């Protein structure tokens, strides 16, 4: 029996294996959409709860469940606020992170993230949501057009056109940002040394 069929039939062991295989992919996809690692953890939990509830929609035959899971995650991330209210009880039971285990690593991560955010997030968040979705899926996660179409429930041509539009917008924004960045380099070392 395929993994798809096992999960569809309610096999919790198979579902646990699915979590192990794709939690990281969902986590990173969720971060790309939310810009918040903590929120991304919540999206991971809610996505797999939703996936379990929706398991009967899984076709018994087919390829990897990654596109389908990322589609569920996309919707969960987009609706996290409402989702949180609906899942209030579950959210309250969610395990919270303990103390940061390695402050230096975390700090480095934050600096790197901040630089990325400075460079990218502003342009990214100005995209339309459905453009963000295809960028996150195709550029961030590496899904091909067909997989992204499966994830989003839209035709392949729609993915292609959305991706094209989004890329043009980001490239334009990156060009503008480069101009601003060049002007700003004189003060950057001072800021970094303080």
């Amino acid at each position, binding site marked *: 029996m395929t993994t798809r069929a096992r999960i569809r039939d309610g096999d*919790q062991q198979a*579902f*646990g294996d699915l*979590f*192990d295989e794709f*939690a*990281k992919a969902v*986590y*990173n996809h969720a*971060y*790309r959409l939310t810009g918040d*690692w903590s929120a991304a*953890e919540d999206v*991971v*939990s809610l996505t*797999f*709860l*939703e996936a*379990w*509830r*929706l398991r*009967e*929609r899984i076709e018994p035959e087919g390829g990897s469940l990654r596109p389908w899971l990322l589609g*569920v995650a996309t*919707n*969960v991330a*987009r*609706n996290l*606020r*409402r*989702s949180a*209210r*609906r*899942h*209030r009880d*579950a959210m309250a*039971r*969610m*395990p919270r*992170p*303990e103390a940061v*285990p390695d402050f230096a690593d975390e700090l480095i*991560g934050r600096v*790197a*993230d901040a630089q*990325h955010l400075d460079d*990218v997030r502003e342009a*990214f968040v100005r995209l339309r949501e*459905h453009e963000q979705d295809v*960028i*996150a899926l195709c*550029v*961030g996660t590496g899904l091909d057009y067909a997989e992204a179409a499966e994830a*989003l*429930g*839209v035709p392949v041509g729609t993915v292609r056109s959305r991706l094209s539009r989004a*890329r043009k917008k*980001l*490239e334009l924004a*990156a060009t503008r940002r480069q101009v601003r960045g060049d002007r700003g380099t004189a003060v950057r070392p001072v800021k970094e040394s303080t």
Partner: protein
Amino acid sequence: MNVFPDERDLSGGRHRDLKEFVMAEIQTRPRRNLLRPMILAPVLGVAAAAAVVLPLVLGGGTPAHAVEKNPDGTLTVTINEANDPKGLEANLRGMGYDVVVDFVPQGKQCSPRKRSDSWVPREQSKLTVFPPTVDMSDDPGYQLDLAKIGPGQTGVLMFAVGKEDRYVVAGIWAGISNGPVAPCELVDSDGAPLEVD
């Protein structure tokens, strides 16, 4: 183009913690009590598009839909059975709102997709109040601000509906047309149910 930071693993024991949480949840919660998903029909179009979802319990003698007026003048619309769009439309028209209501099942779209020659710009036509300003945690529904529909304008409410087990999950597309709108004829489509031009 390096758009995103490098990928991370779930730190430390978080993978284990989250997995244990999810597995415990799915083992202990009866299916009928699982909360409804936030699965939205992809929404396209030039006019206002606000999508939310809600659980709709079939059967049980509950009314097909309910409309409640809130103190701030908005409405809370709850759809219990997605089978009577024109009944809901009549209710809303009876309250003085010039609206058309259509339910669009999965695999269908309204034809024509261009139902109006002139849509009110999105920022002026948000008929849905989202996030809601009234508590709907016990009785999920849609909060609507139909007072935004001006004289001569027509509010358009399209609900994407699907049937699964005992539930119907619906998304909403809401917009305002400057003038009348073409009737919705449901036709087969592999696009998003609420796709409009």
